Each structure stands twice: as C-alpha cells, then as structure tokens.
C-alpha cells in the first residue's frame, strides 16, 4: 500500500543523502521525493511517497527515526491529509489541436504558462488523480516534455471535518 511520509530534518548538507541512502541500502522504494525548507530555516521537510506492507512501513518509519538529523517522522496516510503535485506539461500543438489544448486546460483548471507556434506549456496542480488524468488527456496531442514536482502533503485540521482514523504517529517528540 502507498504511504506518504513526512520527514522533518535538520537543514544540513548530507541529510538528504542519508535518508535516500537508507531507502536504497535496504531495498525500499521511493516513488516520489520532495525537499524544501520549512518556516524554521534550520529545518527542512522531506516528503516521501513509498509503498510497502505494514511491517516494511514500520521498519521505514523506525529507520528514518534512527537517523541522527531526523527530528520527526509522520506517516500522513494514517491521518486525514491533503496531497498536491504540480506538473509542467509541454504539448505539441498542431493548429488543429490548439483549441483542444486550451479546452482541456480549462476543464482541469490548469494554466497555459508558455506558448510557442508549435507548443503550449501547461501548468497543473492537484492531487495525483487529477494530474494523471490531465496527462492522459493530453497524450493524444503529443507530449513533448513533462516534469513533475513529486507530491507534497499536509495533514488536515480536524475541527470541522470528520475525525481522523487516528492521530498522526509522532514517533519523535
């Protein structure tokens, strides 16, 4: 099963290598990875999308926690969460396809952020289903280049929504 794991780390060089190396050394899968600083400039947030059965995810959580520079590990899949991804899609646009491209971008609430006589570059943000649906729809037009950010995720506040299955697993406090 797919899991989205947020890993709060010290913002120091080599930390990402240690986290990524842990996955490769133990044969765990990384489906996507994103890293950026948080509000506190001394820390960064790594969002990892991985897959595995429960014992493997448990090991991944424990192994991440074991890294000295890792401050907090949360398996967001255990909670209510929002995830988003952005893709930039450069599509071939023959004259007869230009309208279709604009229409699709409109339907998906995407933006055309660059255009040339033969291409449009479309920016789309959304959850993975939406991004993949957009890619799927654009494929017949001919995708010249595609770049995706990898997923980021955040837990939902629970005050006015249904209560989560359980609190985030804060293994390190």
């Amino acid at each position: 099963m797919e899991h989205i794991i947020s890993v709060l780390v010290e913002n120091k060089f080599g930390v990402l290598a240690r986290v990524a190396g842990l996955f490769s050394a133990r044969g765990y899968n990384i489906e996507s990875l994103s890293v950026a600083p948080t509000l506190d400039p001394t820390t960064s947030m790594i969002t990892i999308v991985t897959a595995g059965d429960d014992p493997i995810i448990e090991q991944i959580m424990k192994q991440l926690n074991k890294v000295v520079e890792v401050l907090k590990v949360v398996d967001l899949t255990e909670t209510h969460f929002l995830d988003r991804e952005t893709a930039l899609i450069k599509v071939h646009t023959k004259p007869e396809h230009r309208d279709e491209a604009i229409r699709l971008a409109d339907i998906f609430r995407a933006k055309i952020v660059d255009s040339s006589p033969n291409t449009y570059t479309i920016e789309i943000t959304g959850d993975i289903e939406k991004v993949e649906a957009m890619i799927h729809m654009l494929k017949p037009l001919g995708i010249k280049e595609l770049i995706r950010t990898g997923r980021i995720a955040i837990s939902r506040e629970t005050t006015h929504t249904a209560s989560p299955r359980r609190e985030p697993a804060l293994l390190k406090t």
Partner: protein
Amino acid sequence: MKMTGAEIFCESLRREGVKTVFGLPGGVVLKIFDVLCQQKDIDLVLTRHEQGAAHMAEGYAKATGKAGVVLVTSGPGMTNIVTGLADAYMDSVPLVAFTGQVSTDLIGNDAFQEADNVGISRPCTKHNVLVKDVNELAQTIKEAFYIATSGRPGPVLVDIPKDVSIAKAEFKYPDKVNLRGYNPTVNGNKNQVKQAAEEIMKAKKPMIYVGGGAVFADAADEIRELAELTQIPVTMTLMGLGSFPGTHPLSLGMLGMHGGYWTNMGMHHADLLIAVGARFDDRVTGKLSEFCPEARVIHIDIDPTSIKKTFHAHIPIVGDVKAVLRQLNVILRSMDGNPAQIKALRAPWIKQIDEWKKAHPLTYKQDGKIIKPQFVIEKLYELTKHNAIVATDVGQHQMFAAQYFKGSKPRTWLTSGGLGTMGFGFPAAIGAQIAFPDRLVLCITSEGSFQMNLQELVVAAERKLPVKIIVLNNGVHGMVRQWQDLFYEGRYSASILGKMPDFVKLADAYGITGLRALRPSEVEPVLKEGLKHKGPALIDVHTDPYENCYPMIPAGGAHHQMMLEDPPELKLARKGGGRKRKVEEGEGVLPA
C-alpha cells in the same frame, strides 16, 4: 585563548578521556599528528595499515567499553578503514574515526588523495560529519563521542579538512550535547515490562536468548539474576558470549548455525523466547518460517529497528537492556516468593534439554596423528580458563573457539560477528592488549585470516605486547572448504591455500618468538611454552584440513534440522572413494 584546529582536536580528546589513538599519518593530517605527538598523555599507536588501526580501535573498544579512536589521512587512508567501520557498524562497536580531508577550497576538485569520506562512509557509520568551520570542531567531537557510545553504539566519522586543522578558534568544550533528533530510550515501558514478567511466570519451556547488546549494556549481572531467579536456561549469540558464564549450569552456550544440538532443539521447542539485546540474525534463526514455531516472543532492545525487523515480537520493549532487566527483575522478585516452586516448574524442561545434550554433545575424535582444531581450543581453555581475553578471526576456528572456549566474563570475547571480517582478530587482540597490558590476551586465528593483517606483528614486537597468537593452520580456508565439501561436491575452488609462509620464521623476522606444533602430543607443551613466554608469541599449530564444524544448520535450514556429522557420501570420499581430493595437491600443511 585561540587554538588551532589540531590543538582543539587534541584538547577535545583529552576532555573525552582518550588515552590511546590508533592511526597512520599522511599529507592532510600532518598538522594534527604534529600536535598529537607533543601530547604526553595520549598514546599514539602507529599501525602499519589503516585497516589495522580500525580493528585495533575495535578491539580496544570491545574490551574496555570506551570509544576506540582512529586517526588517518584522506583518500586511501580513509578508504582503508571502511572495512573496520562496516564491521563496527554491524557489531555496534563504539568507534570515533577522524579522517583528514583536503582543504575546503579544494573539496570536489579531485585533489591529490581526495575522497568523499563522508559519502563513502555514510552507509557504514551511525553518523558522520564533515567539519567545514574550525569553530564547530569541538562541538562536533563532543557529539561524535556521545553518539558513538550512547544508545546502540556504533562508529562515527569526523572528517577534518587540512585548513580546518590549521585555522584558529576560541576553544570552549561544551559540557553537554543537545541533539534534538537523537535521544535514545533508556527505560522500558512499564506495562510492557509487567506483561513480560507475567509471560515469564507462566511459561513452561522458556529460553533466554542473549546478544551483543547485553555486553555493551553491561547487563551480565542482571541476566544472571533473571536466569537464576526464574530458572530459565540461557543461550548466547556469537556476539553475546561472555554475558553469561559459559560454565553456569543454566548456560546452553551458543545457538544458531553452529550452536549446540541441545540449544537449537531448545529453541525449536521453546514456548517463550526472551530476546535480550539480540537482533534475530539469519545465522541465528536459520529458516525464519520455522524458527521458534511455538514461542511467544519478548524482545528487549535499545534499537527500535531491531524489533520486528526479521521476526515478530509479541511483547516488544525498547530500552537499555540493563535498565529494562532491572525493572523486570524487580517485578519478578515481587511476584515470586518461592524459589523451590519455580525450580519444580522448570525441572522437566531443564531435564529435557539435558537429555538432548547427553544424546548429542559437542564431539570430535583426536587420534595420535593429526591435530584436531577443537583439541587445541580445549587445551588452550584448560590452560588459561577464565583469565584470558580472546580475540578471534573468522571461519572454522572462530566457531570452534565459540563452542569450546567457555568465556565467563563480558568483554573478554572479541570477534567479528555481523560482517565476518577475516583479518579482524589479530589487530583486535593488539588493541585489547594495549588497553590491558597486564592481562592475558589470546588471538585465536587461522592461516587464512592471519595473513590478512599480519603486518601488525611489528606493532606487537616494538611495544613488546605479550599477545599470544595461536594460528590454527590447516592450509585451507576451512569454512569455505567445508561448504564446498557439503554443497559443491567437493570442488575446492580457491579454498586450498597451497604455498604457505613459514610462520615461525615469519615471527622471527619480526623479532617475535615463534613455536610450532605438528602432532597432537606436542600441542600441550608448545601451548604451555608459548603462554609462559613474557613477550609476544606466535604458535603455529598444524591441524586437520578436513575437520568439519558440527553441529551445523545448513543455510536456510531450521533449528531441528541439524547436521551432526559428515554425511555418508562425504565419509566415502574421505576413505578415497568417490570424489577426488585435492588438498594434498597443494603443498599442504600435514606433517610428513
């Protein structure tokens, strides 16, 4: 007062109580070595190879419980200690390795003797740091020692660029560390411990299974109390040997691939397993799906990743083994008022194990012609008993030593368990001897392993370290040969060593006493002579190249499926029938 990086380095070591540094100099660490040689209270041990330095530091650390310290140069100096780091990582040995690095302005330029020390060592260290600013050096060193020795111990590498060792900074050694991402759990969860105690009182066929974590946690007394209080037999992993006296009536010796028949049968039939500082390694468990099929499992370990990594645990307890056992023993003492009752409850189980032991004890046949390796270890044990620190290398001799040398104290058994590093034993023995100059330190090794780091003989010679090296010399990579005989139809691919150095002459070349035993009758007198000798001695004992180590759980086998002796087709081959024998085609080591 401002100090150079090199001076800060030396002063920081002093604050950490470091007495000994194992290392070898080179271009970028010259400044550090220059300052270090002026420190009267820090002994700098010049090894002849950086790998030797790493294993010496491991031996020192395993014998003392303090961090072993290594100092080497960049590039090849660092890459040569990688085996030692990986070994220390697998066996949780507290090590702080300092490596030189090219100047910060040259990093990344493929400068002379540059290597990505931090990158190379990342997968085989608990933590590592490149120090880019001399102002951070003292803090980094303080943290390195703390991380290496606390929690589940392990190696930490600190990479010091040349310009950092020269640059000056105000020296202020921190009193304590504050690592927000690192805070090992000490005490066990009270409810879990209580549950464990209840399980223990209920169990009819319990086993205590002790690993290296108990040695590092200094939990020998607590294990003994637990075992005696509850009358539960104790088995140890290769790394756990010494944490419970091998001669104790409740000791079952080592378990696993070459563990006793009675021990592994006990594991197979146990209804409760109390794992203490052990990690269910494949050499211990054999086939996981058939490991301890009937047992409830209590797993006590300081490292949460060790729990449920390979095997399930019904009652996981994360915490320092010593602290958790103390909690557990307090509860058990309050629960149990009647030792006689406990004894009676366990009696059938102990009796059953005893019957297994009587049916298939450890055994070998010593005739008058060829020396059996087990015989040498038994003699050695008889002659030295519990006073020796024993370092071993890796292979058959290591397993024989584990089976026949019944250590009684923790930190007297130094061996490479996880990584299985041939070449570990001799430098480790030197490290232990340097830590304890007055104690008897034995290096039980083989001709194969010994040749991997014999350059360190000169360290023993120049320091007149009274370490005794016993080379069980059978002219073959014994364990490889054994597997080839059992699983590869006797094709001895690259296991016959053929041309062998004359170890007595070799010892002589280094100015060390060399002795030799060729026949069984010579073993005892030669060992006695060697042990009596004041300085270092090398004892070359020529042993049977065909002796196999039993019992044996073949890789992937289960605990109740042990081989207890050579299978029939191998016996036939031994008698000259069947397959071809090639050992004699080499120069061989058997006496003429």
